[in-house]
């Protein structure tokens, strides 16, 4: 089955194909050039669905924008769609443009806030343009992320709670966590799960030129495809791992991968309209962060250990996967069972495990791999 084609509608004429997953755009002087374009996006079952997406110069969809706290960030947005759009990052008021006409451009310039996980979106006609696909990840790395005791974290020290600091201080030290500290700025230790859902019917109505009242979207939303970083099911994890694999993007940015004792951050966000319940096997996660009503990042004062956690629409919630020895294995390391240990993560509200009304489990699922013991 040929499922890989992902055609940008604007490029169909010249036959150029692009990749479906999110690209990564490491900051180069904090300037990003984004376009908004209409595309025909191929779903995991081969069905094409009209979508709207952000692109950058790499021709790959929904670039992951990464900056450092206090950087002066410039984002130029060009609207190549036939409808007006806008731009915004909840939690960063200065990063917003109310409307960009078809063919027009706009620029936002702002100082990167404290470290954390943010989402850029088209907030116009909310939630319509967002659920048609106009979303992406905006990641801010802290300027000073270490705890007072010197342990690296993904968060600015000024925002640390004693509990988050205690957890990162315990890594590599506490008897539960032999192995490493969390390693900053390493895409193998910093994963992104940006959830979304696709309703082909609403997409087709927009494509046909229908004006859809935004207030009618939630009551009529019936998703048929469920994604992590724009990918579903089989496509959400690399199935061949070698030196050429790029961990910064695509399925490589989704699948946590490492040895026992290599704790990994997983940035969870939900761009869609379904409340998901991501559930992980093999280890429990520690909940690290939430957002305030104004969209700013807040660190938790109790880092609950969970194997399932709610992700409501627009939620942004970081978790730490400790890469601990699976606590209930009888023989560890196993003698007769080969590595890697492979454990799934899937939404437990299992309608999300389908594609096109069936095809279990070609929906919001991936897995993580523990390649060896300490």
């Amino acid at each position: 089955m040929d499922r890989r084609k992902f055609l940008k509608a604007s490029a169909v004429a010249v036959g150029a194909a692009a990749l479906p997953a999110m690209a990564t755009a490491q900051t180069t002087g904090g300037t990003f050039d984004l376009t908004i374009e209409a595309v025909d996006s191929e779903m995991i079952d081969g069905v094409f669905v009209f979508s709207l997406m952000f692109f950058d110069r790499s021709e790959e969809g929904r670039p992951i924008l990464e900056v450092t706290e206090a950087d002066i960030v410039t984002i130029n947005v060009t609207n190549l769609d036939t409808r007006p759009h806008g731009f915004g990052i909840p939690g960063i008021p200065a990063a917003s443009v109310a409307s960009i006409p078809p063919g027009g451009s706009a620029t936002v310039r702002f100082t990167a806030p404290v470290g954390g996980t943010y989402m850029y979106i088209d907030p116009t006609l909310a939630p319509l343009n967002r659920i048609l696909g106009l979303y992406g990840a905006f990641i801010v790395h802290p300027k000073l992320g270490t705890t007072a005791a010197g342990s690296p974290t993904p968060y600015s020290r000024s925002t640390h709670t004693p509990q988050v600091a205690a957890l990162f201080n315990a890594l590599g030290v506490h008897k539960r966590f032999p192995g490493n500290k969390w390693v900053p700025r390493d895409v193998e230790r910093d994963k992104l799960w940006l959830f979304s859902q696709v309703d082909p019917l609403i997409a087709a109505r927009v494509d046909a030129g229908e004006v859809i009242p935004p207030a009618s979207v939630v009551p009529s939303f019936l998703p048929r495809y469920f994604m992590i970083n724009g990918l579903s099911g089989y496509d959400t994890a690399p199935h061949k791992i070698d030196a050429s694999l790029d961990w910064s993007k695509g399925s490589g940015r989704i699948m946590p991968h490492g040895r026992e004792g290599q704790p990994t951050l997983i940035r969870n966000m939900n761009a869609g309209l379904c409340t998901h319940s991501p559930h992980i096997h093999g280890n429990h996660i520690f909940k690290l962060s939430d957002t305030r009503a104004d969209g700013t990042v807040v660190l938790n004062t109790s880092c609950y250990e969970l194997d399932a956690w709610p992700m409501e629409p627009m939620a942004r919630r970081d978790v730490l996967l400790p890469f601990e020895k699976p606590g209930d294995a009888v023989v560890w390391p196993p003698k007769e069972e080969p590595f890697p240990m492979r454990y799934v993560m899937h939404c437990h509200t299992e309608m999300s495990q389908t594609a096109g009304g069936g095809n279990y489990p070609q929906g919001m699922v991936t897995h993580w791999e523990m390649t060896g013991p300490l």
Partner: protein
Amino acid sequence: MQAADWTKTGVKGEVTYSTFGCNPFQESNFPTPDRVAPDVNVERHMDVSLDLPTPDGQKIRVWTFTDPLAPTVAGRAPMHPAPLMRFREGQIVHSTLDPKKNAHTIHHHGIEPTTVNDGVGHVSFEVNARYTYQFRPSRAGTFFYHCHRNTALHFEMGMFGPMIVDPPEGPGTLFSGGPKYDVERLLVLDDMDPRWHTLEHDAGMCGLDVGLNRFDPKYFLANGVFNNRTTTDPRVVINAKLGQTILIRLLNASYSVLETTIGLPGVCHSMDGCSLGTEPWSSPLPLPANRPFTMSTAQRRDIIIRPTARGTFPVRFRFLHWVNGKVQDNGRGIVDTRIIVS
């Protein structure tokens, strides 16, 4: 026993679009790796014959696991939810699945075993005939077990049961060093869409649109009791004497966002089988009386309640739709029960 051939499983076999989805790896009598002598044996078979009478005079077919080793006829009979598994922290558990018909798995949800003992077909294998899952629960708390084949359907059809791990001290203590309790009530909340209960075992797996993205529940249950009887049924109602400590173990086995409101103040001491407050990065969570809290699918909460007066106190569960947040079935998706302190 045969030798393990890992290449025929998701462990060393080639994972393709097909083995990932439509044709997952399946095995019969696969030898449990690193098998050691167990402290406790449990066994589960499959049953697809149970019809539950519904409040509106219909019958709904459920699938379940049965316990062939139960000492009584009633214990061996099909029931919904499937029979409780109860272990002691540190015991080596052998949990054997013999589906007898078709392929299924058992995933012991919240347990952290090795991959082949985790019960997920596309990374290991589904069980055609007899496999013994081996693990040693290291934390006391509330868990559950369920089938992980065509899970959207099999879990909804009822292929799940609760699982409790007691600390070495045994029942009466939530976890070592944690709170003690006198009255224990496990509450498993579930919803059912009757349309789903007419589907086949493999419905949709190989490309057919069977509408498993649409879930419109019409029935709402606690511990297998439909919501027209949950305020009186002794399987649900919580009875305690003044001075006793109550432990409520909550499991959201529905496909709704579950909103719980308890008419008494309590404290949540563990979530998803993990104790709170035993390490410096977490603490128990106070739950003021009558303040709603939500749980997404598969979450568990262990709540300690110490009533300070006699009376009858309401407990309400509202099943909320995952997109619009409204109470399911036009507002009827509610389970009510009571805590009676005498």
